[in-house]
C-alpha cells in the first residue's frame, strides 16, 4: 500500500524491533517477546489515542512494553503458585542483551519483587537510565525515583540477609 502519510506499517517498522529486543531481554524468550510485540501493536491499533504525545513515542513504547512484560511475569508467577511449581513456569532462556547476566538476575528478582519496585528496577539496572529519564518514564518526579531506588536497595539487602 502506498500512501503519503506515515502509516501504521511505518510505525511498526520504526519501533517493533526495539519492542521485541526489550521484551526478549525481560522475558528471556523469543516466542514470548513476539507475543508482546503483537500485544503492543494490537493495543495501538485499537486505541491509538492512548499515546497522548507527552513524550517521544519510543519512550511511551518502552514504558508500555515494560508494563506488558511485567504483567506476563506476574501472570506466570500466579500460575506457578497455582501449580506449586516455583519458578519453572517462566522461561529462563538465555537473554540477548548487552548485559545478559544482569538480565537473568533481574528476571529472577522480578518474580519476587513487590510490584511497585519492578519498573524502577528495570529502568535503573537493565536500561541504565538516569533518575531524570526514569522520572520521564514513570511520569513522576526525580525525587520520587530516588525514593523508589532507596526502597529497592533496602528490599534487596533484606533478601541478602535472609539468604
Amino acid at each position, binding site marked *: 500500500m502506498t500512501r503519503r502519510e506515515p502509516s501504521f506499517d511505518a510505525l511498526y517498522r520504526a519501533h517493533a524491533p526495539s519492542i521485541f529486543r526489550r521484551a526478549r531481554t525481560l522475558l528471556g524468550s523469543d516466542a514470548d517477546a513476539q507475543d508482546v510485540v*503483537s500485544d503492543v501493536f494490537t493495543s495501538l*491499533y485499537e486505541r491509538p489515542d492512548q499515546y497522548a504525545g507527552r513524550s517521544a513515542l519510543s519512550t511511551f513504547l518502552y514504558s508500555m512494553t515494560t508494563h506488558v512484560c511485567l504483567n506476563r511475569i506476574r501472570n506466570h508467577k500466579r500460575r506457578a503458585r497455582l501449580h506449586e511449581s516455583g519458578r519453572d513456569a517462566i522461561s529462563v532462556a538465555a537473554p540477548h542483551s548487552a548485559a545478559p547476566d544482569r538480565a537473568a538476575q533481574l528476571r529472577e*528478582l522480578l518474580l519476587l519483587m513487590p510490584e511497585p519496585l519492578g519498573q524502577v528496577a528495570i529502568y535503573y539496572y537493565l536500561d541504565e*537510565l538516569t533518575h531524570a529519564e526514569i522520572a520521564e518514564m514513570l511520569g513522576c518526579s526525580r525525587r520520587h525515583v530516588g525514593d523508589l531506588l532507596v526502597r529497592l536497595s533496602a528490599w*534487596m539487602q533484606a533478601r541478602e540477609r535472609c539468604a
Partner: protein
Amino acid sequence: MSLEPQERPEGCPTDLRFDAWSAGELDANARALLEAHLDGCARCRDRHAALAAERAAYLELHPRAELRIAKAVPARALRWPIPAALLGAAAAVALFLALPAADPSGQVRRKGAAGIGFFVEHGGTHARGRTGQSVHPGDRIRFTYTSDRPAYLVILARDAAGTVSVYFPSGDAAGYVSEGYDRPLDSSVELDATLGAESVFALFCERGFGLAGPRSALTATHTLVAEQGCQLAKLSWTKERAP
C-alpha cells in the same frame, strides 16, 4: 542475590536513545551530539551497529505487524497527537487509522471456528469490512482468517462478470496458515474495475491441494462445496463506482 550497579559510562547513550535516533525522533541538535559522540566512542559505535543489525534481522523475519483484533470498536478516523518536538521529523507518526467497524469483527464463520474477514483501504483510511458492503475499484482488501487449527487455505472470488480470481495465495497451491483468530494475511489485493456483486470463498483444508480444482468448480458451478476434511467460509461485497 543482588544486582551490580550501572556499567554505562557517563555520557554514553542508552539503548532508548539509540532507538529514538533510529526512529527519527531526535531533533537536529540531539542528532549532531549523538553522532559526534559516536565518532569518538568505539563502545557506542559497536552497540549502535549491533542494534542496527538486530533491527534489520527482526524486520526480515517479521516485516508486518501481526495484530490480534478480537473486539470491535466504532469506525472513526483518528489522528494521533504529535509532540511539537517531533513535528517535521522523518518518522513523525501521524496515523490515520480507521478502526474496525461496529459489526463484531465482520468475520464470516462456520461452525468449527474457521472463517474470514477483511479490511478495506479506501482513500488512505482502513476500515473493517462487512459482508455485503459496498467497495470501489482501486480499494485494497486485506483478508483476515480465523482457524482453530493449522490449515491449507485458498481464497477465491467470482465477480459479476463471472471471472474467477485467486486472492490467496499467490502460487498454484493452497497456502499453509497457522491457527489464529482474525489474523491478517501477509498480502493485500487491489480491486479491479468490474462493477457488481462479487462472492468470495475461503476453503480451509487439513491437507494441501492445488488451485485448479476449486477454480474450475467455481467457474462452472458458481459456488464451492467443502469436501471432507475441509471447511468453507463465504462473504460478499458489491463493487460500485467510486463517488
